[in-house]
């Protein structure tokens, strides 16, 4: 018998009688201002958040706060005068020198500050992880309260790769001292648009 078949046979033999799945539809938070909540949560975990009036305001913020001499990439055509529009068909290693990437979130979660991104909005899977700094454009109307609502929206969406990102990469492995910028971005900025 193959390992597969013997493992499955042992599991089948040993598993207890069926226990029903619980109903998880009852997880709700009290009415709240999700935008305010999002801002507080995200800045609380070391993220930077700006309410931007327009794409123009975002461009100005980028020019003022990031080194535009270095490589900036984006998937948003509206930002093409500050960023190079990235291609998914190149080798991931070619993004090693990216200083800043700017992408658009599919949704964001107020309870934990995380944004949901799929590979289509990333441009290339590696981009939000390899860039020295990450910026994400979030439409306020796409902010939900909790992860339950987030998955209700994601529902049966088909993607090859997707991820929640909830701030700059971090570690506290050395004596529990918090250090922002472990292997991923050193900073994460969220631009909120109405």
């Amino acid at each position: 018998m193959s390992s597969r078949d013997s493992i499955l046979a042992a599991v089948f033999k040993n598993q207890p009688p069926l226990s029903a799945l619980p109903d998880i539809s009852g997880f709700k938070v009290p009415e709240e201002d999700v935008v305010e909540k999002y801002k507080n949560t995200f800045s609380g975990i070391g993220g930077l958040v700006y309410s931007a009036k327009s794409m123009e305001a975002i461009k100005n913020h980028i020019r003022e706060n990031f080194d535009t001499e270095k490589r900036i990439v984006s998937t948003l055509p509206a930002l093409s005068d500050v960023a190079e529009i990235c291609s998914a068909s190149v080798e991931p290693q070619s993004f090693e020198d990216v200083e800043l990437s700017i992408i658009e979130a599919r949704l964001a979660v107020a309870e934990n500050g995380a944004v949901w991104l799929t590979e289509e909005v990333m441009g290339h899977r590696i981009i939000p992880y390899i860039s020295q700094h990450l910026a994400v454009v979030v439409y306020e109307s796409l902010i939900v309260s909790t992860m339950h609502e987030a998955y209700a929206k994601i529902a049966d969406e088909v993607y090859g790769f997707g991820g929640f990102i909830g701030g700059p990469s971090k570690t506290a492995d050395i004596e529990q001292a918090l250090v922002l910028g472990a292997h991923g971005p050193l900073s994460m900025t969220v631009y909120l648009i109405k």
Partner: protein
Amino acid sequence: MKGTQDHATLAEVFNRDEDRVDWHDGALWWIRQKRDRSANLTPQWEELREAASAIKSNVISNLHDYLLQFEENLKKNGVKVYWATDAEEHNQIVYKILSDKNINQMVKSKSMLTEECHLNEYLADRGIDVINSDLGEYIQQIDNEPPSHIVLPCIHKKKEEIGELFHEHLGTEKGLSDPTLLTRVARNHLRNVFMTRRAALTGVNFAVAETGEYVVCTNEGNADMGAHLCEVQIASMGLEKIIPERKHLGVFLRLLARSAIGQPITIYSSHFRKPRPGQEMHLILVDKGRSELLARPDFRDSLKCIKCGSCMNTCPVYRKSGGLSYHNTISGPIGAILAPNLDMKKHADLPFASTLCGSCTNVCPVKIPIHEQLYKWRQVIVKEGYSASRKTFSMKAMALTLSSPDIYNTAGKTGRWILNHAPFAINNKFNPWYKQRNMPDSPEQSFGEWYSKNVKKS
């Protein structure tokens, strides 16, 4: 090899440096407090734990079908699936995947399963170099030590010791111990590793049967750096990581990081479903004792574990003895209930490394009755004849004393007389109870004697 000594002996070594024990204790308690603050800020926290536990009960009861469903979906998604009965078979599979591609270097993100399988050593013997990319695991690897905590692998190390390791292995300036500077050095060094490795292995936090996707959670971003830069992506998972549907991730991702370190969610929760164009994706399902654990009704709930580490942070024995004292990859209370299933003789000491205070059970996000299982393991271990002989002898002596009023009264009298008249007979290093304790002053009479004198008369 440290593994030949038991928990009490190894804990005694750890306890020689009292300041370090206090520091270790405090660092972990601080994380426990962060967990509490975070849990208290989350509405319906207890209902969430209840839901997580019930979902996992369902998984355990229907694992066979979920595994088949998961396998079918993985294949549809273009992922190659393997099954491994034990560590040896798991390691052989990884080796075959790599050697077929002529790959001799791999980068790995945190995976307790591959630590348990001693994958790095197995591959090193066959000429394949593996680098652990989680910072704590990297530090433990260059120091040639296993992780002492599943979430915080080098929680027992001082920054000066890490500085010394970096000086030796990465050529940093001697005496450098600033955590930010050390992290930057590791970041630069490992970036080069990520850029040049053709293969990357990750663990799995949750595997969704419904969609065939698996979720990997990190704070550092190391799993993603490895996975998205490599051409061969491998994931190793224990059978119990299955969850039925994608929406159940909502429950587990709300609980995991809050329970682990008091953070609302891990910075990265990555959902891998299909390889990117030009990439290969392999997934290995590992049994390694899990199907056997399913057959033990008293212990099968330990398969619900989501490896958050909260039971370690809260455990008074773990905090004061250090993870390495458990001589097992997974230490602390959860390690002490998982390990005897794999090798009862080797791990017979671990269920005794507990005060049974129940704090672990109270914080467990999936409501595993950890302290009850510890107590039950003790009974199984004694019945099977694996308990320490001194413990068995003293338990028998106590059973005899407590079952006979005459022996009980004589023993009580003798004990009180010795404590009052010859304390040196008890307060010496041959009595394990005297270590780190003062023996109490003994009353002149027992309650029985007092009762017959005062109450019976009236």
